[in-house]
């Protein structure tokens, strides 16, 4: 039985006249459009896609952190049997930080610049574990120690700007794991960090998850992260899952042209010398609505007019449990031929 079961989650931003961040005037934007996936206890699930595909919005929706005004959330997300999406404000506030925790992308901006680290760690202990004063401080110090921050007693008194980038992310992680949550959502936790630090942070995350049996929902655009960490992967494009598979299966056989493209655009040491990288054309802005066909069509190397006849459904063209949303999936037989035709 899965810990979290997301079913047909959709998030729509209502169009504002002049409001910020809500797209063009008067038009509602569907940021997430019927996404479903499960996360089991102790499992690491990846949500992959380029920026704007809806993965972060999905995470925020699950945490109940989307603004209530101008945003409508549909579908269900059962966490331990209770629907996170329809849960009352007070109830989800109790869950947040204790059962559900989240790590954000930019550790500097995610920490309050004018409050000492110590306070930011202890406040969560006070809230959910009732720890106060010296007890809270001691616990906070041991948390920092656990996430690998040296000299935790001194660091507790310091402010975010006095810490290095990696240290800040460790502090954020310390806060997230402070109450031993059952589900940890990590939203691009390594993007803002140096490469060497990235690996350390991922290592730390893995360690913590393994130790506590915490389920992890890993949100990233970095397939490298996915490869090293995730058990199950969901590839999102324009608010919909376009491919869902186990890690090995996906890396071995990327079937949706988008996933295929993503993997193709990673530089590989073992690739033949002189072979160019194959980036995906354009950006996610240049999409058409899913209702009119496949949203990826304008950027797709394999598109045919069939792609525009309606929303493609998730199918399992290659293997059971490997779902793909494509009418013209990349299958071993026709792949190279088609690619050659279009690119010539």
């Amino acid at each position: 039985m899965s810990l979290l079961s997301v079913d047909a989650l959709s998030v729509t931003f209502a169009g504002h006249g002049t409001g910020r961040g809500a797209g063009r005037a008067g038009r509602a934007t569907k940021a997430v459009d019927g996404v479903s996936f499960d996360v089991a206890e102790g499992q690491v699930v990846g949500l992959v896609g380029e920026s704007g595909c809806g993965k972060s919005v999905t995470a925020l929706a699950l945490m109940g952190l989307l603004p209530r005004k101008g945003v409508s959330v549909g579908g269900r997300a059962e966490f331990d049997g209770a629907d996170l999406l329809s849960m009352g404000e007070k109830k989800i506030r109790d869950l947040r930080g204790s059962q559900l925790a989240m790590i954000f992308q930019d550790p500097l901006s995610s920490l309050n610049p004018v409050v000492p680290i110590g306070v930011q760690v202890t406040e969560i202990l006070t809230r959910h574990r009732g720890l106060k004063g010296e007890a809270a401080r001691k616990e906070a110090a041991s948390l920092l120690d656990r996430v690998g921050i040296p000299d935790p007693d001194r660091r507790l008194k310091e402010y975010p700007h006095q810490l290095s980038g990696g240290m800040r992310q460790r502090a954020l992680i310390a806060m997230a794991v402070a109450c031993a949550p059952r589900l940890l959502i990590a939203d691009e936790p390594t993007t803002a960090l140096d490469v060497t630090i990235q690996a350390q942070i991922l290592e730390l995350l893995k360690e913590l998850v393994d130790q506590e049996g915490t389920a992890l929902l890993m949100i990233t655009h970095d397939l490298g992260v996915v490869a090293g960490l995730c058990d199950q992967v969901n590839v999102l494009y324009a608010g919909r899952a376009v491919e869902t598979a186990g890690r090995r299966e996906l890396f071995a056989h990327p079937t949706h042209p988008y996933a295929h493209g993503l993997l193709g655009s990673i530089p590989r040491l073992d690739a033949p010398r002189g072979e160019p990288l194959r980036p995906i054309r354009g950006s996610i802005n240049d999409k058409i609505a899913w209702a009119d066909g496949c949203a990826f069509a304008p950027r797709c190397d394999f598109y045919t007019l069939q792609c525009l006849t309606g929303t493609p459904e998730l199918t399992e063209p290659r293997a059971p449990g490997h779902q793909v949303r494509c009418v013209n999936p990349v299958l071993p037989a026709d792949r190279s031929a088609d690619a050659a035709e279009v690119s010539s």
Partner: protein
Amino acid sequence: MLRLVARRLLQLIPTLLGLSVLLFLWLNRLPGGPASAILGERATEAEVARINRALGLDEPVWVQYGRFIKRIFQLDLGTSTQTGQPVWEEFTLRFPATVELSVAAIAIAIVVGVPLGYFAARRRGSWLDVTAVSGSLLGICIPVFFLALLLKGLFAVNLGIFPSFGRLSTGIDATKVTGFAVLDGLLTGEFDASWDAVMHLVLPAVALASIPLAVIVRMTRASVLEVLGEDYVRTAESKGLDKRVVRARHVLRNALLPVITAVGLLTGSLLSGAVLTESVFSFGGIGQFIRTSIDARDYPVLVGFILFIALVYVLINLLVDVAYSLIDPRVRVH
């Protein structure tokens, strides 16, 4: 902290020196120079020469400037041409009234403005927000003296709720201790005098508060809106913290930083407003005195006042800096 204060105080010196040069030049640029200001147009050449000699105006400019500075350091700001009393005494006599008025105005502006700005931002687009925003726009656009006249006409003359002028009612026998009417009453136990002084403060303080209030509402609102969109607020929310903790520790604490700076900057406009409101309410503070000094071309008073205000302003901003650095740790390292 002490080093910050010391450094800012040191920085004060060149600033005030620069200002004193400006002032000195200004005084010398007055039509016909000081002699004519003193003697008026009646002056004969011989008289002008005599006065110029008497004031040492026939000496080199730097000698004159040196003397000007020396006098300032001795707190010898000269004698008011209107009242015949030393400028310094006139100031100490009237300053408490203006301080009381300004503090009351700023207090109103902060006490009303910050919550209003905060809730307007929280309920963006609600009627509260619309009222706060348009009200603050109006507050900025309505001439202070006109507002003061309207307030007085309505609440003092027609409704008779508040007194129409002055700092204390006639017949209130207040013992003078500090010169601050409200405080004196509390110190001496003459609560009725304090109450009377408070009643006299209400209308002018409200009129004077209009601009600072408007500025603070808008600053707070904009700042809260910005902070609400910050990642660390989301982090705080993701920790499931109590709403109160999120608001106080994570939203307000950050949102108030620019507001604090604004309060420091408002000092200048506050004193401008005081000139107008004190005139309307015949309040008897520095503002009204400055107005009559303007009319009477009482230059010793004006020069003294400008220096004085500059000093007050710099000190207030020093205070603001200190307060700022107490709240914002980032400033301390720089």
